[in-house]
């Protein structure tokens, strides 16, 4: 009896610990500077945002809603623009702008303002996407060209991905009851067109392109600017790159 029990115990231990250790070793990166490398000879899409060029006109938001059948209400967005105002006392107030908002007060007229700027936001299309990791049915997945998409035919609407996204980029579509988010306008880019928001931006604050291409507006953007990404500490490796990003932005 004792022998049988100790055998069973040992067997279970090996089974459990062996499986776990093997699984964890597979997940662990083997190098400190390891990154999710873009596959060679293939498109690997990225996005650039010039903070200084954005004028907060919100045309990108309109274009996105029209192009992608996003509900018109302000609670469901694939892309949005935040307005930051930092005062001389160090206080920062943030607001998501809406089309038709009143004009932003300027530092010239309001002496308490230290600096103000707009920050366009969208899905970061992370190279290491937490939303893909947590999806229980694999309905959220990463394409070969690095875009994270949702298959609305298999999404069960558990909203785990919405919880796992550090950027608030996802919402539950009130009509389809499935998760939804920016796709870089995948239907357009796979035809060689630009995402709708990039196309309508009057100041070219939004740049889109293949990160693997040697010469493109995207690679030029990365070459000419100091670049930062959002919440880099979470190791999501965003592919939306910001030029001149302020430290206040999260």
């Amino acid at each position, binding site marked *: 009896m004792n022998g049988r029990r100790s055998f069973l115990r040992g067997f279970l231990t090996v089974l459990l610990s062996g499986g776990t250790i093997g699984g964890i070793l597979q997940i662990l990166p083997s190098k400190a500077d390891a990154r999710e490398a873009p596959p060679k000879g293939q498109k690997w899409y990225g996005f650039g945002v010039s903070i200084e060029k954005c004028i907060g006109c919100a045309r990108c938001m309109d274009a996105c809603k029209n192009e992608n059948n996003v509900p018109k209400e302000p609670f469901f*967005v694939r892309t949005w623009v935040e307005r930051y105002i930092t005062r001389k006392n160090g206080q920062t107030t943030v*607001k998501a702008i809406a089309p038709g908002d009143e004009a932003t007060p300027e530092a010239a007229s309001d002496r308490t303002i230290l600096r103000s700027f707009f920050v366009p936001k969208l899905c970061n299309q992370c190279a290491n996407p937490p939303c893909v990791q947590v*999806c*229980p049915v694999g309905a959220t997945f990463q394409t070969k060209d690095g875009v994270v998409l949702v298959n609305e035919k298999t999404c*069960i*609407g*558990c909203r785990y991905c919405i919880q796992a996204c550090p*950027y608030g980029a996802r919402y539950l579509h009130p009509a389809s009851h499935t998760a939804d988010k920016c796709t870089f306008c995948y239907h357009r880019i796979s035809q060689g067109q630009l995402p709708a928001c990039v196309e309508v931006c009057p100041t070219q604050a939004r740049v889109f392109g293949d990160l693997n291409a040697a010469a493109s507006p995207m690679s030029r953007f990365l070459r000419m600017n100091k670049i930062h990404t959002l919440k880099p500490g979470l190791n999501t490796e965003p592919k939306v790159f910001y030029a001149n990003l302020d430290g206040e932005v999260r």
Partner: protein
Amino acid sequence: MNPELIRSLQELLPQIQGYIYPNEIEIHWGLLIVVYPYITGVVAGAFILASLVKVFNVKEVQPLYRLSLLTALAYLLVAPMALVSHLGHPERFYEILLTPQTSSAMAMFGFVYAWYLMAVLLLEIWFVHRTDMIDMAEQSTGAKRLLYRVLSLFSKDKGERAVAFDHSALKVITIVGIPSAFLLHGYVGFIFGSIKANPWWSSVLIPIVFLFSAIVSGIALVVLLYMIITPLTGGKINMKCVDKAVDFLFYAVIVDFSLEMVDFIHRVYQSEEEIKILSEMVMNKLFASLIIIQVLLGMLVPLLLISLTKIFKKRFSLNEDMRKMVYFISVILIQFGIFATRWNVVIGGQMFSKSFRGLTTYKMEFGGIEGLLYAIVLLALPIAILFVLLKVLPPWKELREEGETGAEALGSAGM
């Protein structure tokens, strides 16, 4: 489109403090997801109480053995209902089982659940009741006889060797069952604890805190049920048993409380970027549910009450009714406390913006799938299932084992 949802979101707009991302206005995991970890916690806790008898040989709590197994089963059957009905597409829930993604903590639920239900709980309950079911089949006629024949899987062997096998099988199942029960609820903790995007959840301690709060809620609930059911069915409460169970409950609450304090102190001391918004949330939005209900009423008051029975042992040992009352109040308070714990984890984790700049509000509905009424139904359903289970597999004989003191109660039970 859903005009009702839009209207309720519109009503929330004025209540937002500071800045939140536009998509964060809607709270996605509502009351149903609060109910779910509460229920699985009870399952795990009740099973741990049962294994005290079988594995750790705590003879005093033997009367609670079958009751806690049946309680665990009744709650386990309801657990997936909360999950499935909260889905945007409940009709697709089977996809989790057919095409699971192995990297997802949630996808493993189906397997952990199935393992726990089939390989642990049902198996253990079957072996425990096998000979009883054979007896019942022999004593009854007609449909009832058929029912017990089927339930006992047509086994008829009551010989010594068969009974001995039952016993050794039970030992093995319980030994496998303890880590499985830990897995069941630890995994529920991991679902939350592994979300790095959410600093309120993201903590290595969360699975362990979940485990101990599960043990607390399970033991407290079984004791509560025992203290209600026994007098109702004409039995006498075995105070030796309740004393012992409350003893374990007491230590579990202490461990649970300490773990939560460690988590709290760690967060405050490390004081990372999210600390300001989290403390604002605790003081503004969660004050009643966290400070008052979870910590004060759910932990400190019961700890104090139970300690009183230990400090003034002499006085309390003479007065059984007094002790009963203290225990009764304590286990009820603990239930509310643990439910508040689940609430604070699930709802609290969604009340602050991941921009760490603002807070939103959760507005509970009354009707509808995410509403209060449905949650109450889900919380009452296990009790109804338990009622049926108690009819089919009556634990009365064991429930009324009185030790040396109350042999007469056993005789009068007449079951």
